[in-house]
């Protein structure tokens, strides 16, 4: 399963990478912000995008909107990995078309399983 992970936190990128690799069955590429993720997603055509919300420059919500407006990326599901507990914001993410939300902090041993379920689950 090909995943693009977008987060401006270098350490979290490392952790997600190690968590998914140790789970097995994932291929991962990372971006540090929404703008560079757009090009990567369009070119690499992953099975899903996992993204932080709170990022300087183009944030997760803007990235989601951009991906959806481009026919080449519109069908690729996006899952947010976020520390946001604000109910309204979370509802907004789903209403905008996010496939799901995984909370930060997350259990790295279960991240792969959780992600695979979300990607293959609801369509």
């Amino acid at each position: 399963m090909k995943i693009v992970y977008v987060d401006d936190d270098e350490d979290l990128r490392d952790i997600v990478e190690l968590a998914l690799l140790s789970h097995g069955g994932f291929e991962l590429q990372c971006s540090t912000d929404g703008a560079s993720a757009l090009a990567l997603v369009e070119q690499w055509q992953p099975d899903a995008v996992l993204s932080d919300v709170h990022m300087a420059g183009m944030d997760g919500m803007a990235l989601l909107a951009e991906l959806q407006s481009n026919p080449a990326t519109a069908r690729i599901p996006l899952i947010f990995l976020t520390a946001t507990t604000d109910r309204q914001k979370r509802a907004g993410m789903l209403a905008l078309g996010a496939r799901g939300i995984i909370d930060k902090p997350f259990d790295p041993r279960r991240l792969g399983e959780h992600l695979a379920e979300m990607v293959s689950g609801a369509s």
Partner: protein
Amino acid sequence: MQNDQLSGLLCIQQSVLASSGVLQQTYDIIVENHAVMPQATGAAIELIEGNMLRYAAVRDSRPEVKSMQLPLVGSLSGRAILTGATLICNDSETDDRVDLEACRRVGLRSMIVTPIPYRGANIGVLKFYSSEPGVFGDFDELVTQLLVGIIAAGLSQISETEALAMKGKLLEAVQLKQEFVSMVSHELKSPIAALLGALPLAEDALASGETATGQRLLAIAMRNAERMKRLVDDLMDVHAIDEGHLSLDLKNVELSEIVSTVLADLEPTARSKQLRFAVTQPQEPIRLNTDPNRLSQAIVNIVANAIRFSPIGGIISINMELSANQAVIRIDDQGPGIPEEFRDKLFTRFSRVAGDHAPGTPQGTGLGLFISQNILHELSGGIQLDSQYKSGARFIIRLPTEQHQAGRGSERGG
């Protein structure tokens, strides 16, 4: 004449209603209306300021009248304020309640003064005067009281506006506090997520003999525990700043020594990006009477930012000089500079520009510049961004030198 006066009164009422509600406009409308008191050669609104009465509005072409001040005690206006009654003086030459000298100076023979009530006290008077004796009567007393009613209404409207503004400010403060708490929790969650992510993976890696991966993950955990510590330290400082008791321990120190220590501390981080510090300083040492730890903290934040935003292999210039009794420290980097739209927010809490999460450098807490600015302010100095500088970001710190500070201290004492 009475009909004309009532017309004038109506005209004033309409003008005040149509005005924007600014009190000064109301004052001006009243004193400028001639019809309401046609026999008067001038009109004024005098308000208490300390133990004097100052003209808030006046209709009189003579400059000496416009700038006039009256004593509260010994003038008819003062007496009206103290007694709360409308007072008429028919001839200033024979009336011992008036300030005769002041009346002669402006050629005033008769007047009518009515106190302006506000919240149970009188805050000033409305005064009409004439160069002729005996021109004001009972009907004029009624007119002035009606006019004062218009002013009082304006005043109570202002206090309502003030109350609304106060409420708005309070709501804003509560909202800021809530935003702050939400931002702090968010900022803490990132290192916590890294810790809780890295530690179980480190455990697994070490258990399966992948020592290198385990160590890499432990380093991540360590880095993020430190990041949490930095954030908590910064939050304590922000709290101290908010409470107004940032502790200072003043000592006589040499600026270049402080800068050297700061740069030595940051050297490993700078080296990881192959950055070089270029330091210039005058031959004569710059001595300051300051808190060396707080000043170091303020400078560390600026240099750490410079490191964070510098391109690999860049130069960070630190220039110290004496200028007009001030120690000036200029810190330049070769990074992208501060985007114009961000400059207003630069010194506010949790303000961040894109690219703050540069690899290899410790992450900022978003509080650094806010803290630095407040520390420097406490140290009687300041910091600013040089917006003219185009080759990166340039921050300029200014601090009073030892001599300058000593001078100010004795001024304060005397």
